[in-house]
């Protein structure tokens, strides 16, 4: 469903995208997200607005998983809107629930067009990967980590 851009999300904000193994690539000596990290059948991709305590919280909920840092300008630069989705936040989320957002086109686009935009986000030089914190002894496995 087309999204409505939330103007309360400032242009200088940064979004964080949790990534599964297999959603990264190494091209031209640069380790970065693969376009797969930004593919979505429903054309909505989950992110979290960066802010105080957000990264440690993501490391707590998704232990061992890498996180991509994506400036809002990059998302809007491909024509995507950003919408808050507090109801789709993880249940035990300990930060501001309105920090969970989804990004996608503001009008319906084809799968090819969506994938092109995903590729543009992934390749943008300002999109970087934050390494996961080293796991602590006895720490639970990350959800989804059994996939690969």
């Amino acid at each position, binding site marked *: 469903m087309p999204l409505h851009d939330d103007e309360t999300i400032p242009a200088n904000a940064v979004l964080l995208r949790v990534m599964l193994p297999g*959603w990264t*690539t190494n*091209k031209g000596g640069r380790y970065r997200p693969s376009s797969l990290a930004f593919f979505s*059948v429903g054309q909505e991709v989950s992110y979290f607005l960066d802010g105080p305590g957000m990264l440690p919280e993501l490391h707590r909920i998704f232990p061992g998983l890498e996180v991509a840092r994506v400036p809002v300008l990059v998302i809007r630069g491909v024509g995507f809107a950003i919408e808050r989705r507090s109801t789709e936040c993880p249940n035990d989320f300990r930060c501001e629930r309105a920090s969970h957002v989804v990004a996608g086109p503001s009008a319906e686009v084809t799968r090819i067009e969506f994938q092109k935009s995903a*590729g543009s986000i992934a390749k943008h030089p300002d999109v970087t990967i934050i390494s996961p914190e080293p796991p602590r002894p006895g720490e639970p496995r990350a959800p*989804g980590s059994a*996939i*690969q």
Partner: protein
Amino acid sequence: MSPYGSAVATGPIVQFESARWLPTLLSDLRSLETTGENIPGLGDLRVSRATADNVRVLLTAISTAPLPEPTLAPVSGGGVALTCNIGNRELILTTYPNQSDFVFVLRNENDVPVDEGIITLEQRDRLLDVIRTFLANSAR
């Protein structure tokens, strides 16, 4: 027999034995199908039987081409992406739920898309053309 028909085994690009990676990827696919979860904040990674079946058809069809070992990864919303790399060159074939086709994108050494589109499961020749282009340009 696959929807691509037996000609897959006798076409010009398929003069090779089935790839060694096929059993591993079929196992990976089974894992995606059985362990995928809907994870708030990350995505719905559940892969339906029908989607997995389409990926199996695709894997079987390309397993006779001399591709380097591909990888499978879930796509948020129930899709599955197959990625194949030769250096910086990349071929991604994405299967979507409830669709009997897949989206492909072929990127060159400069990470620029040089071909992309949608191929149905019946378009064997188009699929083989894409793979042939990927392999031919990689050899330059």
